């Protein structure tokens, strides 16, 4: 056991499987007491089960660590409040929040139902807000704390059939940048991770995604193969961000997979046209394609009907 997080208390949501489980175990192995939260639902968000969270807690304990299972639905304000309270009730403090909980409901935009939109936004985006809002009240009082959220390249680049997921994940990225600015002065840091890993979410593709990609072979992601990227590979960097050593790392986004940790830039103004006053439409018709949009690649060019 290493001791970067000795004496700390952490909440990890979605910690029953995959990346979240890896994070929970790593934080515990660094000395933190961990609230292992997982509703235990299917990837589509159906049903509940105590088993995933309990299993992770068992593994942590058998390695000599301390953990408690928690089965709260963090997508409600009451859930977010109760999980923060439970850290205080059981362990007397809270230092670290890692929000990993998330589901998939892939669907092309023209077929996407309201339910598919609402559920994905609720679990990922609202489920990040609820826990962080209540944690931030405490963090401000104690003038310390760590927030680590989970965004995704799906929002940064755009992935077919994931309008809801991209909205939620980019929403988390935006939320985290603001949380960093709201809380930094109190000695708190908030950062986002964009992960790649071989997990239930990426491998056991839900029926909706399977159907979608079966119909469209040209849409399969061209990202590097995920089979060498294990969910546990994400955790060491999360543990580092959670530690006192990372006190000045705030408002950043990192891409993390395998042995790779990449600092991502904020968006930049890469091409600019300027005039004093207001653009004439005629002027833009000339200048925009010559400079602003010259050689831009269409990520999904028009195709002939089949």
């Amino acid at each position, binding site marked *: 056991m*290493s001791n970067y997080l000795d004496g700390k208390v952490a909440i990890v949501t979605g910690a029953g499987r995959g990346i979240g489980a890896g994070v929970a175990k790593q934080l515990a192995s660094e000395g933190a007491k961990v609230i292992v939260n997982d509703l235990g639902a299917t990837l589509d968000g159906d049903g509940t089960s105590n088993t995933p969270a309990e299993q992770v807690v068992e593994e942590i304990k058998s390695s000599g660590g301390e953990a408690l299972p928690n089965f709260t639905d963090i997508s409600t304000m009451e859930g977010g409040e109760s999980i923060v309270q439970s850290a205080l009730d059981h362990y007397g403090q809270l230092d670290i929040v890692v929000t990993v909980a998330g589901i998939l409901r892939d669907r092309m935009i*023209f077929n996407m139902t309201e339910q598919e939109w609402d559920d994905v*936004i609720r679990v990922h985006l609202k489920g990040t807000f609820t826990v962080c809002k209540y944690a931030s009240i405490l963090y401000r009082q104690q003038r310390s704390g760590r927030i680590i959220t989970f965004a995704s390249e799906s929002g940064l680049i755009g992935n077919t059939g994931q309008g809801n997921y991209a909205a939620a994940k980019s929403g988390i990225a935006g939320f985290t940048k603001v949380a960093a600015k709201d809380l930094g002065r109190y000695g708190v840091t908030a950062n986002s991770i964009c992960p790649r890993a071989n997990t239930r979410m990426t491998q056991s593709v839900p029926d909706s995604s399977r159907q979608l990609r079966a119909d469209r072979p040209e849409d399969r992601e061209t990202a590097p193969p995920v089979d060498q990227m294990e969910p546990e590979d994400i955790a060491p960097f999360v543990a580092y961000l959670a530690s006192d050593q990372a006190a*000045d790392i*705030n408002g950043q986004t990192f891409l993390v997979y395998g042995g790779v940790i990449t600092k991502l830039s904020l968006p930049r103004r890469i091409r600019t046209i300027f005039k004093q006053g207001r653009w004439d439409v005629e002027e833009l018709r000339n200048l925009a394609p010559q400079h602003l949009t010259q050689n831009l690649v269409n990520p999904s060019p028009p195709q002939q009907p089949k």
Partner: protein
Amino acid sequence: MGNLLKDKVALVTGSGRGIGRGIALLLAEQGAKVVVNDLGGGVDGTGDSATPADEVVNQIRANGGEAVANYDSVSEMEGGENIIKTALDNFGKLDIVVAVAGILRDRMLFNMTEEEWDAVIAVHLKGTFTVCKAASILFRQQRSGRIITFSSTSGLFGNSGQANYGAAKDGIAGFTRAVARDLGRYGVTVNSISPGANSRMTQTVPQSARDIRAASGMQASASAVTPLELNREPEDVAPMVAWLASDEAKDVNGHVFHCQGGQISLMSNPTEERTLRKNGRWTVAEIDAMFSGTLGMDMVNPAPAQSPK
């Protein structure tokens, strides 16, 4: 009157005032028939009124253009569907969707209520989805269409006191990139504008935001006020929107543009800036040893810790 958008039909949400109004007026001036949608509420989303949308419609007609008002709330699926239906019922088709509708409920994160969160997410983020989803069904069938959404530097970079707004606006940027991939193959383009303008939303700063910034000593915007920022009018955003909405911009898909006064910038997405790599899994101790000399170089904390007052 120009002819860039001759024979096109457009709908613009949130076009009763400010940036949306400027867009509706310019699209009409360029030949489009326009559905002017606005709930007519306050910046904080409360109340409603037919007046803002009606006034814009009247102005378009007085200028020789064609327009019709719609007062539906974009936050509901039925509202989004109904705005599309208004275009089809009145003008027989739809070519262009511009989703501008939005409100503010600024609050520091630790004080933000559920209602403040939900309301802002509903109008901006869900309000972009409802209209785009409904339009996308039509656009896919007709194998053409234009969608322009509205993001913000508050989402792209983050602005204190705007956890809800930043989440919604960065969420809209992510949504735009994803939907560009869903629809591009059908001859549709989907792009986002991050605007800078002096409008009701930024000028008549809601009392909550005014209080926050007075209490924390923070300015409304991160940078000092420049001449450009003093002179940027809501109508300045419209020309780029009109161009993106035209046939001439058919190869521009999945991008974010920042429009402020006479400045138009193509924004990059977050990209790889610095990378640290090893074969195999990192230990925390190894990261601790390596970080400051590699990833951490020149890294600035946007809100460093301060001593209590």
